[in-house]
Every structure is written in C-alpha cells, then in structure tokens.
C-alpha cells in the first residue's frame, strides 16, 4: 500500500533547494524551530503519542483547487476509486494556513501554490518532497477603460509598476489586495517586490486590503473601479458577475501559478500519515492523474495544465539539474494536452 518510489526524489530535492534558498531557509529555520518547540510541548510532552490513524488523510489545501471543481470532480473521486480504504479529509484554507498546518504536523499532506514558501520549508526539512502537478496563470484584471495602461505590458512586474504610478498620481483606489496570506496574496506581494514598488503607510489610499476570498476581492475591485490579481479558475467562473472588470494581462512568465503537492516530514511529526500522503502525491503526478487534470474542463476551458508539460520549469532552483531530476521520471509526460 505504501507508495515508496516517491521517496527517491526527496533527498535530491532537499539538497538542491538548500543551496539555492539560503536566505529563505534562514527565516524558515527560525520559524521552524519555533514550531518544533511548540510541538514538543504538545501531546508528546505528556509522554503520550497520538495514535496514528492510518485510514484518514488530512489534506490541507488551497481553496482554488476546490472552487474550480478540480478536487470534487477529478482528484477525490479518482483517488477514492483507487484507494477505497483511505478517507480523505480535505480542509480548504489559504495557502499560508495550509503550510502552517503542514509545518505543525496538523495535516498529512498539502496542496498549495506558493513555490518560494514551499522551497523554504523543504530547505528546513519541514517538508520532505514537493511535487508540482499542475499550473495555470494568474490574471491581472481591472476596469475596462484601463486607466493605468496595463494592457499589453511585457510582464506583470511592469504592469504593477504602472498601477502603483497611477494610484500614487491620482490617489484613487487602484488596487485591491487579498491581504490574507493566500497563495494569490503571496504572489501579488512578490510581484510588487519585482516591480520595485515598496508599499508604505502613505499608500493606504490607492492600495487596499480586503482580507477576504478571491470572489469578495473581485467584487470590491469591481465596485471601486480598481485592479486586482486573480487566479484563473475564480475569474472564469465569476468574471461575468463582476462586470466592469476585464481581463487585462495574463500568460506572462511571471504570472505563472504552480500547484504542488507537498509531503510532510514524518520524522518531525510521527502522527503524520505519510503512507497515504505518498499515495495521493503519486497519483497526482502519475500518467493517469496528469491526464485527468489535463482533461478537466469547465465550459470547454481547461483550468489547469498538467505539470508534466512543463518540465524543466523556471522555479526549480537550477534548470540544468531539474532537467535531469528524478521527478521527470516520476512524472511521465501526459499524452494528452489541450
């Protein structure tokens, strides 16, 4: 039952990442130590180890894979058919919270979309393996008049620079941020950084935070005639209900949105059901899993591209190494791609 072969890739991945992400690692190490310490005060301190419940798999997942229908229509039914003995308990939260659950051992496996955070946790050993299994693109949406001139920008960073300039010039609400540590929010923050825009207290007039989900944020942006960054699935499903907003920029390289399945270090958290977690990860990157993801369409539009289409990719630490990585062999190319 235990899906062993995945473990082959873990050691390699761990080392490669550790070298590349030193700074992130240092921060994550401090965090990790705090979490470890806190964990030690839990049930283990009482001398009682939680009884592992092998039948149950707690999946901490980002909401967009549920909201797009991918989990309920593709992943969960296929997984249940293959492993009827495992009860998957998907807990849909923001990527930030999902990774917290992974770090503290309160989940068995995570599905998230924030590569820098995931790589940092790999480097500290909190995660043992990260397997990208699907991707799509974030989209910059905004008022159809496009007052900041975002349309046709060569990159999202350039577009963000224009939005900031427009906001600072006019003092109007120009951008609505999720502000909730979700994967989309993390992506947005990294885009401000690569745009060279430092958000200060003075920017509170044009840059507002909704603190809510994607749909609520889109609605606020529509009401305020402002720009925002959205994931593709939420946009395709609800774009018509937030009418004044239009899609302005997508499919630039820096808008790529990579979903991965992350395995949690059982050595740190003995109660983690790694065996079942490996089965889920294995299925997601298997040929049948990758094909099912590629074939999933909503109203004729594919919401996710299988990741097998995209190896090697830019977010792995070293391109040359990733081409020769064991992951390539673990993810046979999906034969059908849209």
């Amino acid at each position, binding site marked *: 039952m235990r899906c062993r072969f995945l473990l082959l890739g873990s050691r390699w991945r761990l080392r490669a990442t550790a070298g590349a992400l030193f700074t992130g690692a240092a921060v994550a190490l401090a965090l990790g130590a705090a979490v470890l310490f806190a964990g030690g005060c839990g049930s283990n301190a009482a001398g009682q180890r939680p009884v592992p419940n092998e039948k149950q798999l707690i999946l901490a997942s980002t909401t967009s894979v549920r909201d797009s229908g991918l989990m309920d229509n593709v992943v969960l039914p296929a997984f249940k058919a293959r492993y009827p003995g495992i009860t998957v*308990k998907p807990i849909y939260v923001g990527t930030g919270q999902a990774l917290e659950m992974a770090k503290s051992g*309160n989940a068995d496996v995570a599905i998230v979309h924030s590569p820098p955070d995931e790589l940092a946790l790999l480097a500290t050993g909190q995660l043992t393996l990260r397997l990208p299994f699907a991707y799509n693109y974030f989209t910059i949406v905004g008022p159809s008049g496009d007052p900041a001139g975002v349309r046709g920008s060569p990159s999202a960073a350039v577009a963000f620079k224009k939005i900031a300039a427009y906001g600072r010039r006019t003092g109007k609400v120009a951008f609505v941020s999720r502000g909730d540590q979700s994967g989309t929010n993390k992506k947005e923050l990294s885009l401000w950084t690569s745009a060279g825009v430092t958000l200060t207290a003075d920017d509170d007039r044009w840059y507002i935070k909704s603190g809510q989900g994607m749909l609520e944020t889109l609605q606020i942006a529509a009401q305020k005639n402002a720009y925002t960054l959205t994931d593709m699935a939420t946009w395709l499903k609800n774009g018509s209900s937030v009418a004044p907003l239009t899609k302005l920029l997508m499919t630039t390289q820096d808008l790529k949105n990579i979903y991965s399945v992350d395995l949690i270090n059982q050595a740190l*958290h003995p*109660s983690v059901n790694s065996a079942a977690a490996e089965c889920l990860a294995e299925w997601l990157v298997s040929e049948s899993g990758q094909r099912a993801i590629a074939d999933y369409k909503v109203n004729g539009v594919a919401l996710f591209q299988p990741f097998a289409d995209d190896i090697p990719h830019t977010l792995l630490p070293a391109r040359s190494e990733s081409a020769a990585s064991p992951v390539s062999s673990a993810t046979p190319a999906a034969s059908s791609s849209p």
Partner: protein
Amino acid sequence: MHLILQGVRQAFELLIKGDAATYDIALRSLEVAAAALAIALVVGVPLGGALALSRFPGRRFLVVLVNTGMGAPPVAVGLIVALFLWRTGPLGGLNIIYTVRAMIIAQVLIALPIVIGLTLAAMQQLDEGLRLQILALGAGRWRLFILLLREARVPLLAAVMAAFGAVISEVGAVMMVGGNIEGQTQVLTTAIMQDTSMGDFAAALALVVILLLLAFSTNYAMTLIQQRGQKAT
C-alpha cells in the same frame, strides 16, 4: 431580485426532489445541534439550578463568568477547541479533529453558558415563598429542584430555544473544528459560506431557506409545547 427568486425556487426544488446531498447536510446540522443541545441541557440545567438555589462565596463571580460565556463569540470557542484537538494539541491523541464529535464538543461549549444562564434566571424569578412552601411541605433538595423546574418550564423552554438557535446558526466554530468536509462534517451554515465564496449565490440562498425552515419548524414545535404548558398552569 432575480437571484433571490432563483434561490428560493432552488430551495424548494431541492426539498421536493429530495436531493440526497442537501438532506444529508440538513440532517447533519440537526444532528449536531440536537446532540450538543441535549448534552448542554443535561449538564447545564442542574448547574443553573444549583447556582440559583445555593449561596456560597464566589457565586457572584461564577454568575458573571456564565453571563460572559453567554455572549462568547463562537469563533473564539472554535479556535480554542481546535487548538486542543489538533494533533499537536493536548487532546490530539483523541484523533477527533475534523469529525462530527469535535463539532458537538464545540457547540456544547457554546450552548452550555446559555443554558446555565437562562436556567439560573428562570429559577431566580420564581417566588421565594414558593420555595419555602415546598420545603415546608417536607420536600428534599432534589424534589425541590424538580418542582421548581416544572414551575419554571416556560422560561426554561425559552432557554432551550435560545441555545438551539445559537448552535444551529453557528458557523465559525463548526468550520474550524469540523473543517467543512463534504459528506462528513459539512453542515448548512458552512455549506452556505462555501457556496457564497464560490459565487453560487442561488445555491447558498437555497440552503439559507432550508436552514430557516428547519429553525422555524423546531421553534414552532417548542413554542407549542411551551404555550400548552402555559394554559395548563
């Protein structure tokens, strides 16, 4: 307006067609609320009665605690219960996080102060003379308690309704400790939240209508009992 009509229509369609998933969610809501209410009543009514009938140092402080608990935000209760039940928490070994049992525990903690507080208020309202009379007729402490409960049944049923209303409509705590897992721990309120965040407003509204119908019919039944009691007295 269109959305509202659509939602109401969808609600009745789901109900009439007997949509299995919807019934499943509604039934689970009722199950969790009923179980939590039953436990809260069994524990809370005697405690409320004891608090009403006894005098001891620190009693006033306890009453303040209970009254504060009546207004405790469910999310706070949910977070605390979740922290305890998480695998890394002190009760992680029980392995009940993200189960119906965990949801019942959280809701008992929400309902309990309401039951204690309203029982206390109901019993204290009774005429002091009545109590003395019952005691004078030779009743024991336990007998006295039963007789006073019967006497206070109208406001006590109000306590039951208030506690039931609090738990059936509660969303924050059950979301945190239950996880809103489809087919396992999803209840009406968490399903409404999910549908709303996914933009399925009609579906969310349909569940709202079902939740309101459920709340109305249970309250209607309890009110009938309460008012019948009223006439008989």
